[in-house]
């Protein structure tokens, strides 16, 4: 049995030295959340993340089943395993949420993101940009004499890498869609 430490009256210690958490490694997870396509459902999901202090690295949403009124929200988030479990349980609690899939633990999955890059430059920079775009299998979707708009799809890491290369070559603007993800194989 534990030793008894009984104190009477007041204590000089602060009342506020609160809790240590489970303190595990931070992991990155991709969640697919199937929701009823009703007004406010995205606000509920986002409100949950901001209200409880969870991270959102990327979030995409679109209707996937018009007759069934279902949308799919793909969220990339990070946290300790305990936090990730909480996020999934909290998402599952939202009334219009039908299903929560953790693609990171439910076997192999594919992740893709689409991005548009505006790169402006002349001479060698312009040639280099086109060459690199070719290597990354980016398409030119707009061009003027001083600029290109590249369209690229791939994993977020590939898009990050492309951004790093374009930066010294006159990168002006980037638009990214965020991650869409599916599990591999038949469902």
């Amino acid at each position, binding site marked *: 049995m534990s030793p008894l430490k*009984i104190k009477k009256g*007041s*204590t000089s210690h*602060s*009342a506020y030295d609160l809790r*240590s958490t489970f303190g595990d490694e931070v992991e990155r997870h991709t969640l697919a959340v199937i929701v009823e396509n009703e007004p406010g459902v995205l606000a509920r999901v986002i409100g949950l993340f901001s209200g409880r202090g969870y991270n959102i690295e990327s979030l995409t949403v679109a209707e996937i089943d018009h007759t069934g009124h279902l949308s799919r929200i793909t969220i990339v988030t990070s946290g300790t395993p305990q936090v990730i479990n909480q996020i999934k349980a909290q998402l599952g609690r939202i009334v219009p949420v039908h299903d929560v899939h953790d693609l990171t633990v439910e076997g192999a999955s594919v992740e893709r993101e689409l991005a548009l890059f505006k790169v402006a430059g002349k001479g060698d920079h312009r040639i280099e940009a086109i060459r690199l775009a070719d290597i990354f299998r980016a398409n030119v979707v707009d061009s003027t004499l001083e600029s290109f708009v590249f369209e690229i799809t791939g994993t977020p890491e590939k898009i990050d890498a492309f951004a790093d290369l374009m930066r010294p070559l006159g990168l002006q603007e980037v638009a990214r869609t965020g991650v869409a993800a599916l599990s591999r194989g038949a469902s």
Partner: protein
Amino acid sequence: MSKQMTGAKMVVQALIDQGVDTVFGYPGGAVLPIYDEIFQQNHIQHILVRHEQGAVHAAEGYARSTGKPGVALVTSGPGATNAVTGLTDALMDSIPIIVLTGQVPTFMIGSDAFQEADTVGITRPCTKHNWLVKETDTLSGVMHEAFHVATSGRPGPVLIDIPKDVQFASGTYTEKAKRKSHYAPQVKGDIEMITELAKAMEKAKRPVFYTGGGIINSGPAATQLLRELVAATNFPITSTLMGLGCYPASGDNWLGMLGMHGLYEANMAMHDCDLMINIGARFDDRITGRVDAFSPKSKKAHIDIDASSINKVIHVDMPILGDCAHVLEDLLNVWKSRGRKTDKENLAKWWGQINEWRKVDCLAFKQEGKTIRPQHALTRLEELTKGHDRYITTEVGQHQMWAAQYLGFEDPNRWMTSGGLGTMGYGFPASIGVQMAHRDSLVINVAGEASWLMNMQELGTAMQYQLPVKQFILNNERLGMVRQWQELLHGERYSQSWSEALPDFVKLADAFGAKGIICSDPADLDDAIMEMINHDGPVVFDCLVEKHENCFPMIPSGKPHNEMLLGENADTANAIQGAGGALV
């Protein structure tokens, strides 16, 4: 065969079909069509409160004391924003209520119209779910779904925002039975994990049941099964503030409430147990104290209907997702079919240890001199009201904790208090809601003078409907709980914790036509309490008590259970000896 009717009529029809008999509300421009329908029927009684916060707390009191959902009706804009505290309170304590709000007409939404507020936006984080209904045809379906969502799974508050044009327009009414919802939380627990728990119970040397409000929410069956399980196993049982009454306070195995102001024996048992069985509680920070020192030697099982409550704060070894009653039934069956085994020898030693802790007598106090001590006032209240058909509500503060410590609850649904949110101003309107549901019962709100002033306007409601609620105010002329923390943790700097310019409560009662009683002498207390009980009408009882009393035991936040502060009169010397004697 579909019925055509206006949206306003649908609201009333759906309430009737859902078995609602009472609505607490306050009218305004955006709900006038609904009020017009209420005027033209006799099935539902509308209680006109004096502030929308009161309507929501009254609905909570009604719900908590009956097990049925409570209903509140308020107007748009300020009516809706006034309901926010009550909604948050109900969310934290898992109370099923349906709040109906009026809204500006659909074609004016977003134009900053008069009394427009983004009600669904504001209340999204403080409801279990909410709806803005834009078409009359969908209104009755939403109404039925709202009752379903509020009452199934982990109960909670829901809100329906109804624009005025939707109330005026006609549409098709859908019957209650016709709708199907995808929302269907799991109620049966995993039988393998339940078996695991039954095995752990057979081997446990120092088990404890740690129960919470979930048992009361689950309903009478859960209470019944819990009592059976406790009797059959002879395990000790403690409960959170919200769970009081699920096991009778007079029961042999009762350790009293646990937590920050819980009983010494309850907290010590939690700290030293080797098997903790959490049923419908959520490891709230008022319970756990310092998380990393929480019950370090125990295997923990957690039965909860809400997956997000499991492993949120405390890692558990045996998570069981399901409704308390369903899981308890399976657990009892499995444990019985395996031969009803417990480790009787070690259990007897464990009870020996617990009885040593009980000798500390942590709630002991001495009533001496001419000033009433609050503990004494509640002890007398308990004694004089014990046999009555009694319901207790409370405000928030020291008086609330003393009420939890010194009043005994034999049955569930008899104790209404704001646990999770700690809402001062909850108790008075809640007592009105309780009394509406139980017209002939004795309903007492144990209050602090500061909390009580937060919703004292409801005295008008009590008078209007002749609700004989008893307002038992422990008047210490202090924001007592704040003062206590300042004394213990902020160097006795009493910043803003005085209740100054207090009203004369007797005159105040008189002004509303209620009965006022003042009592300051311990010698008069019993007679005064009897006068309160015997008066057939609302009573405001101003009980002047010791101003600087502290509420003990107390586990300061951030401290483990075995570092409790005890009151002056607790037999500490004996405790160390007694418990020390049992150390191996």
